[in-house]
């Protein structure tokens, strides 16, 4: 730090104790007007919105209006854990969920992260944090849960990049000892978040074994861009009230029993199942490759001959073993893997020896196979800089893959790229582009950081690139980049990605195996049922503050034999665990059916919220042609027999057709299927043909608040209502 942290404004409060998972108040901070408030949480708010993302969206709804855009001062970043967040008896209970109006999609976005921020925020006395306004110069928001005060401080940092600022703030807000730093958590972004719309929120926890700050990310949607637009360099929370019963649960014994059982499963079975404790999500690398699902060269292909270079065993060797890598206390799944003692090769940190969080599977694919780079060292370095500069690794990688294809097709040249050769696999030049983005070095680097949707327009207008061609392979939906699975062979996954609330992010439904491999979803109604159940079931994690991974990345030994296949995919014993631990913390008495209902309330509220923001209708559920199938001959020819059979399956005889004709015929058939899928899904979800929740549905869910109903009534059209 080069300067002192001067106090700009301060507010004192009485920290509220946690009772049955809630503190029953939320914190409002406006960094522009320097106003502070504690807002009460009503019983109705808990019943209707549960917590976490539900609270975020409720508070955000009240803060913005239909004209609010991402960089308006009233836009907020709202952060909340949820009633189960902070639980230490059951794995995966340290998540926070952030919601905001996204700079990429101009509608609501929610993004989650591990780390210690949300549990410490709860211990500081708040169920949620609203950050509003814009400061005049860089500030730090400090939530001191020990002293009961909130401060806005002048930021002393010239370098706001994440690792720099996070390490310094753990030091500054602790007594400096290794042990004391764990009572602090920091949210930050970085320089690239100022220059691009892909800004991520980094959330820290202090790793007392490694003696370093670790960074987890709420990566998606541009939350970090908003943080920097508000001139918030960091948000710091501190509390020393850590205990074994943070949530003051009604029945701690149930938490311990369910937790102990899952700990045993993880201990006994993880090595034979997903190997989360040794390699984390990169256990998927070669599996996705084998099933043609690993995005390679901008999702053209799903396999690559160099897969062995990025095999999970390679990453297992790079990750430090033997250290419990949970990102919150009590998570024995421990998948927060890290590469220690990595020497940075490029950029401003060149020569520095660091600990790099990850890479996780998504980053191995995005900043790896998808841009044609099969070099783990490069991926680790790109991962480090993405976090440090504050950009989402998924959008960054998918965006770069789009750029590479534009370059390869000659739509952009070195003349445009500032001399960079951006063919697939050009590792050095791609790394240089990351560095250029961080400082906004030239107009090309700035254009890339706007995301694929805007890049298509910029490349067309500025460089004469053919817009319609780029529409085919620009892998975005609703304005945000696709995450790292090839979706084109699963109709259900088209929905899992593109019939979502916020765009193609894999946290709603991952149905490729169920649909394509298991053949469990043969009809559109079957697919629609899955696209109702799984998004809603998964939404529940975001309401209560849990991580999804301990749900189905580990399963009981008898899961596969004790239940019919259709049920086994839901991991019924773990679902029951969630019902039990929710009831044990809150004292409520929900069933597994009510669990889904809780989600459905918030899911539909968010859909109407998007409608209020001018989105949220059928036309906004766009899909690029490459997500439906091959768009160029090399994609078809890579799996010619397979695609010829696909053509036959839609009633077209491939014999005598050119490859281009085959592509056109398959695309035509799949576009029809896409519209059929939309109809089936909308109907199952209780939405009209235009994708708008019906008033009847809102009433059924008890979400028929007058202001919500009025949004629906304003947009619903008689011709879009189902006849039956």
């Amino acid at each position, binding site marked *: 730090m080069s300067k002192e942290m001067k106090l700009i404004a301060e507010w004192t409060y009485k920290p509220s104790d946690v009772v049955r998972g809630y503190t029953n108040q939320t914190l409002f901070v406006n960094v522009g007007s320097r106003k502070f408030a504690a807002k009460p949480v009503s019983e109705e708010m808990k019943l209707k919105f549960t917590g976490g993302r539900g609270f975020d969206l409720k508070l955000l709804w009240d803060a913005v209006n239909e004209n609010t855009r991402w960089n308006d001062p009233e836009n907020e970043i709202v952060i909340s854990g949820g009633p189960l967040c902070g639980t230490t008896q059951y794995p995966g209970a340290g998540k926070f969920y952030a919601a905001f109006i996204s700079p990429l999609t101009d509608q609501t976005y929610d993004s989650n992260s591990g780390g210690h921020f949300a549990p410490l925020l709860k211990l500081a006395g708040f169920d949620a944090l609203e950050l509003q306004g814009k400061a005049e110069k860089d500030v730090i928001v400090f939530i001191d849960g020990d002293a009961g005060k909130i401060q806005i401080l002048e930021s002393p940092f010239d370098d706001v990049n994440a690792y720099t600022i996070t390490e310094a703030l753990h030091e500054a807000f602790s007594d400096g000892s290794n042990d004391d730093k764990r009572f602090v958590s920091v949210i930050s972004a970085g320089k690239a978040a100022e220059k691009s719309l892909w800004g991520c929120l980094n959330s820290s926890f202090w790793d007392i074994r490694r003696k370093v700050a670790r960074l987890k990310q709420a990566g998606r949607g541009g939350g970090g861009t908003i943080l920097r637009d508000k001139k918030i360099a960091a948000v710091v929370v501190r509390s020393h009230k850590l205990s074994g019963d943070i949530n003051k649960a009604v029945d701690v014994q149930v938490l311990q029993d369910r937790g102990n059982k899952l700990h045993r499963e993880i201990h006994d079975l993880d090595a034979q199942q997903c190997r989360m404790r040794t390699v984390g999500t990169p256990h998927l690398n070669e599996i996705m490759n084998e099933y043609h699902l690993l995005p390679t060269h901008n999702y053209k292909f799903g396999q690559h001959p160099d897969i062995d270079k990025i095999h999970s065993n390679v990453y297992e060797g790079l990750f430090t073993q033997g250290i419990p890598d949970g990102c919150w206390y009590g998570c024995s799944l421990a998948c927060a893997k890290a590469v220690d003692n990595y020497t940075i090769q490029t950029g401003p940190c060149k020569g520095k020896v660091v600990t790099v969080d990850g890479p996780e599977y998504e980053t191995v694919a995005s900043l790896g196979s998808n841009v044609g780079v099969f070099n783990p060292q490069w991926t680790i370095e790109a991962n480090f800089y993405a976090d440090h500069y504050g950009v989402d690794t998924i959008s960054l990688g998918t965006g770069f893959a789009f750029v590479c294809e534009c370059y390869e097709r000659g739509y952009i040249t070195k003349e445009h790229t500032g001399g960079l050769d951006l063919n697939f696999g050009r590792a050095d030049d791609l790394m240089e582009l990351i560095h250029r983005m961080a400082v906004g070095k030239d107009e090309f680097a700035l254009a890339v950081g706007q995301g694929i949707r805007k890049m298509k327009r910029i490349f067309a207008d500025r460089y004469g690139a053919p817009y319609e061609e780029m529409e085919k392979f620009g892998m975005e939906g609703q304005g945000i980049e696709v995450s790292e699975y090839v979706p084109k062979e699963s109709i259900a996954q088209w929905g899992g990605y593109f019939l979502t609330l916020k765009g193609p992010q894999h946290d709603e439904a991952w149905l490729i195996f169920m649909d394509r491999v298991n053949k469990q979803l043969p009809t559109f109604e079957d697919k629609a049922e899955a696209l109702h159940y799984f998004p809603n079931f998964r939404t529940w994690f975001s309401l209560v503050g849990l991580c999804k991974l301990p749900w189905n990345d580990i399963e009981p030994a008898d899961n*596969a034999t004790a239940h019919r296949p259709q049920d086994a995919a839901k991991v019924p014993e773990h679902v029951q665990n969630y019902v039990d631990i929710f009831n044990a913390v809150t004292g409520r008495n929900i069933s597994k059916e009510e669990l889904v209902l809780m989600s459905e309330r918030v899911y539909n509220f968010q859909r109407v919220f998007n409608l209020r923001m001018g989105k949220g209708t059928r036309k906004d559920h766009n899909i690029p042609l490459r997500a439906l199938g091959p768009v160029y001959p090399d994609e078809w020819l890579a799996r010619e027999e397979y695609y010829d059979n696909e053509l036959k399956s839609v009633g077209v005889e491939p014999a005598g057709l050119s490859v281009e004709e085959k592509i056109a015929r398959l695309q035509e058939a799949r576009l029809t299927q896409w519209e059929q899928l939309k109809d089936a899904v909308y109907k199952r979800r209780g939405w009209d043909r235009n994708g708008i929740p019906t008033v009847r549905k809102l009433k059924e869910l008890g979400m028929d608040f007058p202001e919500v109903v009025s949004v629906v009534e304003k947009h619903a059209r008689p011709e879009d209502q189902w006849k039956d």
Partner: protein
Amino acid sequence: MITVNGEGLDWHEGMTVRDIIRARKFTFPMLAVWIDDSPVSRGAFDTTVVPDGATVQIIHMISGG
């Protein structure tokens, strides 16, 4: 001939669950296998013989993401 996840597969004498998994290149570790409505535990994939005409379901548990 047997049916695997709704699609035909040539059968041979002594064919085991593991043989089918290899033939279909199913490398995912979390598989649930059912033969004619009876479950097969993962530990018995190598030794369970599949009868001719069987209906086999090899279910990949979701994972992913």
